[in-house]
């Protein structure tokens, strides 16, 4: 336990007592992982970290204990295993949902409920790119050119994941707009179908 704490303090900001973005960057370089890599997000998930860009001591402890790592070297070795764990279908939904909420800004009083398009595009790429490359690419294209929505909410975010899992792509043969798909996906499919003709 002490060792875990020690590692924490080696990256933490002295005044705030938290690992801040700078500290995370340092951690990333030690882990030999880019700080935009999805594995950092996975680590945050494992820690159940609440605020993007910051790790508290409690979160740190939670994560490293779960990964059975008490130093950076072990942590690095634990990453592939963590990746596998996240990618398991039962966990992935949770991770995917977490990814969205993690990126919401604002504090307790004024909790944001949606994320702007640009950030969503990045997040989609990060969280789903490896699994559903073509759907993600097309959807990102669409998000950029459409003007109905300036932000995306959690329901739409989760809807997209369901879309990737359930709908034939690029055939789209089993998509039914009469069902409860979020409207943005109805519009996305319309746009795709128009492109295909």
């Amino acid at each position, binding site marked *: 336990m002490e060792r875990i704490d020690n590692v924490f303090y080696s990256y933490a900001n002295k005044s705030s007592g938290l690992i801040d973005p700078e500290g995370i960057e340092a951690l990333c370089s030690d882990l030999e992982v880019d700080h935009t890599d999805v594995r950092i997000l996975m680590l945050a998930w494992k820690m159940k970290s609440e605020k993007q860009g910051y790790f508290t001591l409690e979160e740190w402890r939670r994560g490293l204990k779960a990964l059975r790592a008490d130093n950076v070297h072990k942590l690095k070795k634990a990453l592939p295993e963590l990746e596998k764990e996240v990618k398991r279908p039962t966990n992935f939904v949770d991770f995917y949902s977490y990814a969205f909420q993690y990126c919401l800004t604002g504090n307790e009083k004024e909790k944001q*409920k*949606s994320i702007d398009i640009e950030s969503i595009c990045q997040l989609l790429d990060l969280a789903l790119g490896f699994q559903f490359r073509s759907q993600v690419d097309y959807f990102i294209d669409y998000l950029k050119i459409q003007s109905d929505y300036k932000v995306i*909410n959690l*329901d*739409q975010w989760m*809807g997209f994941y*369901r879309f990737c899992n359930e709908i034939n792509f690029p055939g789209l043969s089993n998509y039914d*707009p*009469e*069902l*409860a798909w*979020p*409207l943005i996906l*109805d519009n996305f499919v319309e746009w795709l179908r128009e492109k295909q003709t």
Partner: protein
Amino acid sequence: MERKVIELDQGWDYMQKGITKLKRILEGSVEQFNSEEYMMLYTTIYNMCTQKPPHDYSQQLYDKYKDSFEEYISSTVLPAIREKHDEFMLRELVKRWGNHKLMVRWLSRFFHYLDRYFIARRSLPALNEVGLTCFRSLFFRQNFDTFCILIQIDKEREGEQIDKALLKNVLDIFVEIGMGQMDCYEQDFEAPMLEDTGVYYSHKASSWILDDSCPAYMLKSEECLKKERDRVAHYLHSSSEAKLVEKVQHELLVNFSTQLLEKENSGCRALLRDDKVDDLSRMYRLYHKIPKGLDPVATIFKQHITAEGMLLVQQAEDAASNQVILSFEFLFFDSQVLIRKVIELHDKYLAYVSDCFQNHTLFHKAMKEAFEIFCNKTVGGSPSAELLATFCDNILKKGGSEKLSDEAIEDILEKVVKLLAYISDKDLFAEFYRKKLARRLLFERSANEEHEKSILTKLKQQCGGQFTSKMEGMVTDLTLAKDNQNEFENYLSNNPNAHPGIDLSVNVLTTGFWPSYKSSDLNLPSEMVRGVQVFKEFYDTKSKHRKLTWIYSLGSCQLIGNFEAKKIEMVVSTYQAAILLLFNTSDRLSYSEIMTQSNLGHEDLVRLLHSLSCAKYKILIKEPISKTVSPNDIFEFNPKFTDRMRRIKIPLPVVDERKKVVEDVDKDRRYAIDAAIVRIMKSRKVLGHQQLVSECVEQLSRMFKPDIKAIKKRMEDLIARDYLERDKENANLFRYLA
């Protein structure tokens, strides 16, 4: 004294003599039985049955009774019938049957004692029944009798005369022989008759359908059915009627239904096209008793009306797009024509439904669906709701339907309201109607108050109180406004100091009833400022808690222009007046100066200045002279202006309000959809997506047809506002969050 026992042979011998005599009588002998003979025969039987065993011969006598018939029928009757043919055979049959009944009657009298005790004791058929059954079983083994009856029937169908009475008698045999049951008639005659009928008409139909036109075929069918009914009346049993008619209908009308109705130049479509009312009535009469027989007719009816309606719409659309729309009036004219034509179409086909189709619901439905299709098309950019509202406006305003009588107007209004039922965007109609009503009321352009009230009553009846409540409020406001104005004038006469120096009349409107108007920050001319102030003081004496918002854009003004030639009174809008009054202080003003001084926006200003300098009456001179107003123009008062009249009205073209109306209605719809969704979810708590959507559509259908996408959008919004949530397990299920 002891009776002497009669032996069977002996007794039977005696009976046999009587039977033989009976046969002779049947064959035509003039002999008769007298009472004594009858008594003897009867008593012989009586004795033989009441003797003590072993001499009680009831059973044997019963059997011999039966044998007598069988013997006579086989040896005499059948051969007599069989040796003849056709009609002659039938006559013989009738005769022999008559004889047989006689024989049964007499023999059963002789043997009557058996009926009294023996048959009951042994549960055997009565003598009468035995007699008749014999005939039946021996005679009806063969079917050729039926065959020759059928030949007669077919001969009659081909137009030949036959002996109807004979056939009736023959068929009566079939009925009588059933002894209360119709089985003999039904099995031995009716079934083959129906089959034969089927074959006969199938054959006829196949050739008629090729050679005849639809009306001719229908006429023939109708006649055939009539003839068959007559046949039943003349000689068939009444129970055959329904089956016979059904058979004939099946062969003539059901089997060839499609070929008949769809006949190229004479089928249902052609009849509708050529207004062949009689033929269509016949079609209805023929098909309406056939289950689902009218369905294809109703379908064609619906298609026909839809096509006619779409043609009208297309004509109007072509007319609209071929013209460069210079003014609102062009489109207005065409929409007038279109609506009038649609009303005529409606009247025409309503008459069809009542005259040809006996007001059958299937045809009402077909008509309704057809109208719903083409009454919701947009013409020349105007939604049908707007066209209808414009049409109403034209009827109700001064100078609109000038030459029509009150009755005629009432009639048209009635019909217009009926058309509204077919329009799905009823809320859009209401909003357009309200806007135009407002203008009619405020600019005193309403032709007749009674008609205004009348149409509101009709609308209320059709669409409910909520639909018309605001409009009614508007009408009431105007009535109250008159009273209010009187009080204001009294106030002024009682307070001469308060007089603003101009004649001022004010209509105070209840905000909720009237369409929303943007109040602009017009710089009110000084001449009017005092007037507004005075009115406000007056109004405050009446009601303390109301806030007055002045809508100058709806006001009108009478100015006297001091022109060189003569003074002319000009009736203008308040805005126009505000601009003109600026020229009291400067003869020449630039566009931007006018803008600053009046504080009006570009859109309004261009329109206003155009009406004063580029239209019919050039009160102002525009530099440079051109047809449009631009921000660099300079305006000057035109002292040389004059006109034949002493009083002129300077019109301001109406701003196309369509965009705003559609926006307002869309906004209201969003609220309405929200409310409907919340209402539904609150009561159901959990509901599947499709069901929620369909219930929503149903609830709102009285006013408009909501777009599925719009409903989804509102649902999303409600989810974001935590009214609803999507179920975690089932993405198609939604839950109400209290």
